[in-house]
């Protein structure tokens, strides 16, 4: 079996204790995925596993066996930025940039969750099939990704901008 990372196949690690995070960073040298706590508290390690967001520090690499992982490196490049990456620059949605890949991966999946009609704790009408993406909805859905530099306003602005729901 193989783990597909950004379209390329890799064998699972020999040591079953290796997290998906450490596989990416230490073995594949895909260091765009960050580590802030290694215990599921900060969101810096967020990647997409079959398009769903997961905390790679809490995911064993072997759990990704036969599945497809997308990291920040797979979303866009400096020459061809993903719309969220461009919006983060435009809205200054980061300072040190360390939480940034996790925020962008989380936002990518979050927008798909919204498009699929998945409710959040703030969603009033659970039966509605279209979710109105208010600023608070985005804030709530992004609250698993910590940022200590305090780039929160720029991050939410960038996401709303890309979601096409940006209201002044």
């Amino acid at each position, binding site marked *: 079996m193989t783990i597909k990372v950004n379209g390329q196949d890799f064998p699972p690690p020999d040591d079953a204790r290796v997290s998906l995070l450490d596989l990416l960073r230490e073995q594949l040298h895909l260091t*765009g995925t960050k580590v802030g706590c290694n215990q599921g508290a900060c969101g810096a390690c967020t990647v997409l596993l079959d398009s769903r967001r997961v905390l790679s520090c809490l995911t064993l690499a072997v759990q990704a066996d036969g599945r497809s992982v997308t990291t920040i490196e797979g979303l866009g490049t400096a020459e061809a930025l993903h719309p969220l990456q461009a919006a983060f620059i435009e809205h200054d949605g*980061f300072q040190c*940039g360390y939480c940034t*890949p996790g925020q962008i991966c989380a936002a990518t999946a979050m927008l798909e969750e919204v498009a699929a009609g998945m409710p959040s704790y703030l969603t009033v009408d659970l039966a509605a099939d279209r979710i109105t993406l208010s600023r608070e909805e985005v804030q709530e859905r992004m609250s698993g990704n910590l940022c200590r530099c305090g780039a929160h306003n720029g991050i939410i602005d960038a996401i709303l901008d890309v979601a096409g729901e940006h209201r002044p």
Partner: protein
Amino acid sequence: MTKIQNAVIGSVRTVIGWVPAGWLPGGSPDPLIERRAAIGRQASRLDGPLKVTGEARFAAEVAVDNLSYAALVHSPITRGRIMRLDTDAADAAPGVILVVTHRNMPRLGTLALIGMSDMSAIGNSDLPILQDAQVHYNGQVVAAVIAETQEQADHAVSLIMIDYTAEPAKTLFEEAKATARTPASVLIEKNHVTVGNAERELSRSAHIVDNVYRTPPHNHNAIELHTVTAMWEGDGLLVHDTTQMVAPSATALAKLFGLKREQVRVLSPFVGGGFGGKGMWDHQIVAVAVARMVGRPVRLTLSREGVYRIIGGRTPSEQRVAIGADAAGRFTALIHSGYSVMPPYGACPEQYTLGSRAIYDAKSFEFLQRHVDLDIVPNTFMRAPGEAIGTFAVESAVDEMAHAMGVDPIDMRMANIAERHPVSGAPFSQHALKQAFTDGAERFGWNRRVAEPGSRREGEWRIGIGCAAGSFPYARMPGANVRITLHGDGSATIACSAQEMGMGTATVQVQHAADRLGLPLEAIRFELGDSDLPASPMAGGSSQTASVAGAIIAAAEKLTGEMLRLAGNASPVAGLRAGEVRLTDGGIASIADPSRHDSFESILARAARDDMTVTAAGSMPLEMFKFAMHSTSAVFCELRVSDVTGEVRVDRLLGSFDCGTILNPKTAASQFRGGMIMGLGLALTEETLFDGRSGRIMNASLADYHIPTHLDVPQIDVMWTDIPDPRSPLGARGIGEIGITGVGAAVANAVFNATGKRVRDLPITLDKLLPD
């Protein structure tokens, strides 16, 4: 600092006081204050594409051949001795290369504690590291394992058996107050300062507030963990670190390991957040020593728990603020004193009374800090050390006075904001705090505030508005050097060891250099984060921008002279002296007759030179001693408090700043907001919990230490006066720490306005606001 140092600083101030302002740096304002093109522009970060694509390589992300991994064992006891140490199982565990304890750690000296005098004095502690069996605080490093993989190192750590004998430890702030020390100085300021007899004036005042305010310990919690990769190459040492002090670290490591400075290179091109916490601690020293022992590169990344255990944060404090006012609301006495922790082996005095010396006039003053000695991980500087918590106390007290007198809190401040430095009498270089209040109040809609607490309500929510002032000193550090290389194609490279932790260091200095050198932004490259480059001071005290800018000014002057000389007699600018030209349009032009212009490209080409390089150091920062130089702020907050749960929701936050020229509105706004958000954490949720019985941190994780999350952070409005400071490079003062300053009090004052409850101990958690 000692009495002697007090005297030295005092006499420098006195002498500088006599020197005419015109002779000092900033004596004539920086010409770029008037003439700027790139400065002041909304430039996006130059490193933005690298950071959003994950290509920026942080310290733990440099690929290294033959790398080994380390993990640490932390003491679970607070004071005592290691009696029995059994590492056999760890030694035999798969992949283990070496187990290091005090038995086999090479003998090393200790670090010089952080001081203002020597750039390489950067120790947060001068305790020995793995040198003996003694344990000084809970969490201290007592052993390390080096293995082939991180998983193997982490597992082997769990196999080490240590028996300790515990000794009595000082863990209770309240008890240790009895033996508190009174230092002669706090940083470079005299500690015990009196003007008049403040206690007597207080007792005679028409109106008195006299209360004690408490703030808890805090941790920096940069999202990037502390991590270091150390490797020896022959006699040389290469260190990939995440540090706010690149060049000073190299010097300190050279001293500690008996090397020449040139043998040590520290690289730190990106720092994933610092806030005062990314300095020199035990882990770097362990990694360097151990890398030599195993003869391989070693990477040592602290666990998040490890960060709490061995990287100190902000000390707790207990502060008394007493204000006396006359019938007209003018302050007659201001007393600010208190206790904070500073173990004898620590370096950070948490200067919470310094800010209060610089805002308000009063007929009399008394300031005094006492240091409490606890057996604890040494506390250190954390964003706006002193000011962040000092303003909570003073600005809460001012609000209490305004309420007691039935005066609007802004009017109360306006009546007392000083026109000169209240204690030293030195003139302010530039000071528009009153304007910051007026502008901020208007934009915020302060007039909607209802003075009577608890009067505004929407359903279960009570709504309140509050404000506070902030003040943070300007600093430009000595010892900033830069190198400018002008290339044959007319582009330039600026290089120095400065640090980038999210402030936009390169972005802003490229903007600066573009204007200074008369080049377009695209023609300038900025290299930083490497101790082999000309040395910059540490990033601290909101000083880096001014320090590096001062060095670029000096280097540009030198470059001008060199290029004039090189231009020779055939040049349109021949015969002009440095003072008669300026750098503009990619070359040198006469100020009097700008049509006399010679481009850098043609000067270098005529001289058959590929490039021209100059290195220079910034002038001594004497302006700091002649003038009172402070960034100031007015912070406004509107919030709701639930009657049912006591929960506080901050709806609006506005910061109105007076910090001189704003060099890049985009990155500056982000820094202001970032500071203010950390201020929201300080006000409402953040607290490092020490178990008083054991001295052990109980919430050593990001799940249990609550920093603000997206849903906690409202849209934050920031504005600024943008009045240049005539005494500083570019007219700018620091902006990195003023943002957090004052926020704690603005929130607490808004909570009072909402509920009538005065919370004097942070954080303002739900339990403190539950209806009685």
